[in-house]
């Protein structure tokens, strides 16, 4: 039974992340997702210390606040003092992440959060924290929270699908049609922050980025159609969750780490398929004796 709960929790994380990740990589915002996933840490730690509750509303607010802070730091460095984008991202999130680690060390034994948990979560402990209704156990708390998150993410994307797609693919046209690119960007980032926070306990701050970017990138290699890409990404994420769980059992290691490894293997396979298909189209590797001959007039 525990296996099932763990796998389904992982599947819930993978599914929400795959959907959001597909949009992230189309918008070239993968690294901003990475930054946010690192940067929510101090907010989570402070809220957790104050409320002594790992999954309450305050933790969500704390994480959202640090997400906002890191975005404004990036904006400050990039726009106000004209620092290049890569360095702006790098400085901002490492600063907040460092702050989070220091806070954990500082609160020490007062907080039941350890540094390793921050990095790769403890999905194996998910079944230990069961939710009760009346006298019956209805399953792990994490499972239900992640399920609610998935419902939220799916409905948010479903409602605004056309706008999200339009602003992801053609900013110029979206703007001329009166659709605010910035608003939908924040809408998406809101979803990313929320998913990061609720996934934090099970997969940790760094590995959530593997769930966000990996399956979406794999799917992107296999299809040119965006809708198909989202469903492929979800399928990839789900299969990685299942295979990853058993890999972790076999190797007696971290489940989140194992899933991330499987995600990497899936990507390599998709990459091989892609290269095989595009071998002749790629100009760098086109055979010297090109089938199209240019005749001099």
């Amino acid at each position, binding site marked *: 039974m525990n296996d099932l709960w763990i796998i389904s929790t992982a599947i819930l994380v993978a599914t929400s992340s795959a959907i959001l990740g597909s949009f992230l990589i189309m918008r070239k915002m993968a690294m901003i997702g990475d930054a946010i996933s690192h940067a929510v840490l101090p907010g989570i730690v402070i809220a957790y210390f104050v409320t002594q509750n790992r999954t309450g509303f305050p933790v969500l607010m704390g994480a959202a606040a640090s997400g906002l802070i890191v975005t404004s730091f990036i904006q400050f460095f990039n726009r106000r003092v004209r620092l290049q984008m890569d360095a702006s991202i790098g400085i901002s999130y490492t600063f907040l992440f*460092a702050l989070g680690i220091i806070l954990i060390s500082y609160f020490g034994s007062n907080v039941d959060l350890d540094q390793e948990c921050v990095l790769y979560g403890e999905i194996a402990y998910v079944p230990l924290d069961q939710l009760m209704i009346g006298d019956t156990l209805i399953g792990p708390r994490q499972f239900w929270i992640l399920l609610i998150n998935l419902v939220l993410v799916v409905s948010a994307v479903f409602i605004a699908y056309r706008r999200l797609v339009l602003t992801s693919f053609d900013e110029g046209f979206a703007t001329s049609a009166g659709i605010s690119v910035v608003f939908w960007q924040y809408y998406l980032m809101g979803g990313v922050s929320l998913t990061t926070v609720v996934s934090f306990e099970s997969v940790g701050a760094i590995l959530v980025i593997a769930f966000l970017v990996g399956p979406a990138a794999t799917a992107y290699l296999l299809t040119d159609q965006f809708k198909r890409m989202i469903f492929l990404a979800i399928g990839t994420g789900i299969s990685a969750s299942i295979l990853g769980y058993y890999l972790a059992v076999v190797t007696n290691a971290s489940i989140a780490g194992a899933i991330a490894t499987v995600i990497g293997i899936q990507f390599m396979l998709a990459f091989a398929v892609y290269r095989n298909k595009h071998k002749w189209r790629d100009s760098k590797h086109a055979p010297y004796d090109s089938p199209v001959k240019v005749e001099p007039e």
Partner: protein
Amino acid sequence: MTWWQEFISFFSFAEPNVEIVFWGSLLLSAVSGLVGSFTFLRKQSLIGDVIAHSVLPGICLAFLIGKEKDPAYLLIGATIAGWLSTVAVDFISSRSKIKSDTAIALVLSVFFGLGVLILTNIQHSGMANQSGLDQFIFGRASAMNPADVQVFAVVDILITLVVLLFFRAFKLLSFDPQFAQSIGFPLDLLRVILSVITVATVAMGVQAVGVVLMSALLITPAAAARFWTDRIRVMMILAVVISAASGVIGAAISYTSSGMPTGPWIVIVLSAMALLSSLVGKNKGLLQARLLRWSNDRKIAIENTLKSFFYLTDGFEDDPGPISSKTLREKSRMHRADLRRGIFFSRLKGFLKKENGGWVLSEEGEKISKETVRKHRLWELYISKFMHLKPDHVHDDAEGIEHIITPEIEAELEELLEFPETDPHDKAIPKV
């Protein structure tokens, strides 16, 4: 002991271990400042991030093979994994439609995930001597030993030599790779050398600051230094100094309370320095930019105010006596607030005097007034002559440029226009 005494006592090297921590942090952060300058200039800061996360599986595998925490072994493992990760990012982004940011995020997280997989496997297997391996994630400078510091010193010297030897080539590679290639620099080889020294720096740093925050050591010093200078040599020296200082201060802070990880404190100190530099830095810092803009605005307000006197007195031919603020407000085309500011500062600088309830220009004020009009009219003539603009199209352009023209440009314009007497509107160009 108070916190401060504790902090100071770090530098007295009272405990033998402290000396090791001091030198370790110093050597490590200094060399990252140096190497990070090139990644920064090449706009590849996030590659440093990838390498830093990706050394983890290398370290763990090296431990699995070697069965012990031999620094040399781990350094080799880390270097191989880090180098592989940069190759993977390049390969994915150049051979498929995947963009580089996605490739970076993917490689970083998958390598890290693999590292976590191997690390937890080692931990769960209860292998002897495994304790302390997880320190590579967050780093603990206090765990350094004299052998580590010796390795650091050797790596530092080697990397510094490489940088000195290839300085010109690296500089060219960072700023203008096409040109570098065209004059025959072996670009691929230079890139490999640069990535090898970057990887080596990261690999040696993870023990002290941990994989997650090592990237900050590469990115932040150069970014902070760039707010003080545009010159690459000065910037690199500054980056090294800032980084080394942050390394030592961070290590000292973490020394003051037990159980504090070193890496995060170094990063906090570094980030504070970068933030401070971005605010008060002499090169494009926020404060400096504000001051510059403020003094420009003031100069423009003064010149425009004084210029209105020229028009109101018909080029100082008439003497209508003191001019009241009301007349100035009505006749000059300036914004009210600008005019008020212009009057205030002109008076402060002695260009303007109050007489019988009106304003009179001092000798110097009159000179500036004429000078401004002169530049304005010279420019009008210049663009109407050389850009073939109609006389009624030249005013707005001249209105802006008159505040910027230096005496040198003015002399050049004069010569180019063969010392003209009148502007395109047939008005006399005043002489000063």
